[in-house]
C-alpha cells in the first residue's frame, strides 16, 4: 500500500535522509525509531507530500506523491509532528473544515465526525477553542483529523507524545484496532510502544536505515537475548559467580542491582540458549535460587547499540 523508494533529502550539505527505502503492506504497523534529528520526521514529511525529496519518491496506493500528489494525499491520513491545528477554531469547526476539504458534506460529514469523536473521546471539548485544550486533547484532535476520511495509509508522527499513561494506552488501542485494514507508520521515542503496537520496526539514524525487522527479531540482536537472570543469596554470590564463569558458553557474568532487585546476569556467547545447563548446574551444586529467568532481549540495548550510544551488540 505504501512504498518508499530511495528517498533522499539534502538540507544544504547535510543529508537528512539518505537513500531510505521500505514498503508497508496492509495490516502492518511500522514503528519508526531513531534518535532526535535522525530523519524520521523528514521522511514522513516527504511521504505525506509536504517536503519535496531531493531524490526518490513514495508511492501511496499506486499514486506517486510527486506525479499525482492529490490522489496520493487523498489516500493518506497524516498527523504532523506536534499535532498542529488552528488554535482559534474549536474541534467541531476544525473537523468540519477537514471534512469539507476531504469532500464530505451534510449528513455524511456529520456521521464521520460523530464516529471519530466518539472513538477518540473528544465529545466534551468539541466546542472549546483548540488553544485552550490540554496537550493530550490537542494530540487527539490531530489524530481525529488524520482518521476522519478512513484513509488506507496512516502516518502518525509521535501520536502518543504528551499523553498520560491512560491516554497512551487508549491511543495504542485505537491504532491496534484499525491496523488490520490499513498500512500504518508511527514514529516514536518509546521502545515499549514499539513492543505494544508495532508489527515491524525500523531504526534510523543519520538519515539511514540501520535495522529493519519485527520487534522479536530486533530483540534477538540484544546482548540480553537469552541472558539468564539469577537471584541468589548474597552470601553465596561470589561462589556461584565463579562456577558460572567456568561453564562453557558463558561470555560474562555481571552482578546487577536494577529496579527488580539484586541479581546475577549471565550473558552467553552468540546469545546461545544456556538456561538448561545453568539450571542443571544449580541443581547439582544445590544453589538456593529465588529466581531463574531467561531474558528476551531489550530493545533499548539494540537501539543504543545501533544508533551509536553503546558499543556492544551480539552478532545477528
Amino acid at each position, binding site marked *: 500500500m505504501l512504498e518508499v523508494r530511495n528517498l533522499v533529502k539534502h538540507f544544504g550539505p547535510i543529508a537528512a535522509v539518505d537513500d531510505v527505502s521500505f514498503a508497508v503492506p496492509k495490516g502492518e504497523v511500522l514503528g519508526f525509531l531513531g534518535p532526535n534529528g535522525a530523519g524520521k520526521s523528514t521522511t514522513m*514529511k516527504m511521504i505525506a507530500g509536504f517536503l519535496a525529496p531531493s531524490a526518490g519518491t513514495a508511492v501511496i496506493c499506486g499514486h506517486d506523491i510527486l506525479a499525482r500528489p492529490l490522489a496520493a494525499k487523498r489516500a493518506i491520513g497524516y498527523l504532523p509532528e506536534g499535532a498542529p491545528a488552528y488554535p482559534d477554531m474549536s474541534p467541531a*469547526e476544525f473537523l468540519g473544515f477537514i471534512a469539507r476539504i*476531504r469532500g464530505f458534506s451534510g449528513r455524511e460529514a456529520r456521521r464521520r465526525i460523530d464516529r471519530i469523536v466518539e472513538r477518540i473521546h473528544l465529545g466534551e471539548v468539541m466546542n472549546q477553542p483548540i488553544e485552550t485544550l490540554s496537550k493530550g486533547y490537542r494530540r487527539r484532535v490531530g489524530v481525529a483529523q488524520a482518521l476522519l476520511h478512513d484513509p488506507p495509509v496512516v502516518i502518525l508522527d509521535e501520536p502518543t507524545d504528551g499523553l498520560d499513561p491512560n491516554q497512551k494506552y487508549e491511543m495504542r488501542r485505537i491504532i491496534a484496532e484499525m491496523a488490520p485494514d490499513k498500512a500504518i507508520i508511527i514514529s516514536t521515542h518509546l521502545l515499549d510502544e514499539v513492543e505494544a503496537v508495532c508489527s515491524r520496526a525500523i531504526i534510523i539514524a543519520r538519515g539511514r536505515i540501520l535495522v529493519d525487522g519485527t520487534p522479536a527479531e530486533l530483540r534477538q540482536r540484544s546482548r540480553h537475548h537469552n541472558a539468564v537472570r539469577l537471584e541468589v543469596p548474597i552470601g553465596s554470590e561470589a561462589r556461584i559467580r565463579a562456577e558460572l564463569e567456568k561453564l562453557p558458553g558463558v561470555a560474562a557474568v555481571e552482578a546487577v542491582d536494577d529496579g527488580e532487585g539484586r541479581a546475577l546476569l549471565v550473558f552467553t556467547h552468540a546469545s546461545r540458549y544456556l538456561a538448561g545447563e545453568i539450571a542443571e548446574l544449580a541443581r547439582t551444586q544445590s544453589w538456593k535460587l529465588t529466581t531463574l529467568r531467561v531474558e528476551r532481549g531489550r530493545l533499548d540495548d539494540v537501539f543504543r547499540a545501533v544508533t551509536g550510544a553503546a558499543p556492544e551488540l551480539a552478532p545477528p
Partner: protein
Amino acid sequence: MRNTLAIFSRELAAYFATPLAYVFIVIFLVLAGVLTFFLGNFFERGQADLQAFFTFHPWLYLVLVPALSMRLWAEERKSGTIELFLTLPIRLREAVVAKFLAAWCFAGIALALTFPFWVTVNFLGDPDNGVILASYLASWLMAGAILALGAAVSAATKNQVIAFVVTAALAFVLIVAGTSTVLGLFRGWAPEAVIRAVAGASIFGHYSAVTRGVIAFADLFYFASLIVGFLAANAILVDLKKAD
C-alpha cells in the same frame, strides 16, 4: 472550486474568530471619518461628493491593509499548521487564491461599512453616484493589490511583524511613485519615458484615474496584473519557504 470555497470560508471566519476583525473595522471607520471631516474639509468644500473621503484611502490602506495580510501565511508557518494545510488534498493555487479572496472580501466588508458617508452626501446634496461607485471600485482594487503584495510577503516570513513592516514599506513605494513629489524628483533630468514608466507603475496614478469616474481598461488591467503577479509570487514563496 469546492476546496477554494472551504478554505475561503475558514479564512474569513478566522478574521472574526479573534477581535482582529472588529478592531480593524472600528479603526478603519474612525480613521476614515477623521481624515474625511477634519483633514479633508468635507463640509468646508461645500461640494456634494466623496472626494475628501477617497483621497485619503491610499494612506489609510498603507497602515491598515498590511495588518490584514500579515497573518495569511506567516501565522500558518509559525504555528506549524502549514504542514497540516499543505498535506490536505488541495492544490497550492487553490490555497493561495482562497486566502487572498478571504482577505479581499474582508476588506470589501470594511469598505462597504462606510456606506453612511455615501448616505450623508446623498442627503446633503445631489452627488454623481457613478463617480462614487467607480471610486469604491478603485479603492477595493487598490486594497486587493496591497493585500496580494502582503500575502506574498507573509509567505516569506514566519514573523507577522516583519510581514507588516515590509508590506507597508513596499506598498509605500508603490503608492508614492506616482505622486507629484516623487515625479518631480525625476523631472528635469530623466527622459519623459522614465517618468511615464514610474507614474504608470504606481498605484496612486491608476487609483486617482478611476476615482475621477473613468473606469478604463488600462487601469483595471493594471490592478488585475498586480494581483495576479503577486499571487504567483506568493505561491512560489510558499513552496520555497514552507519547510524552513
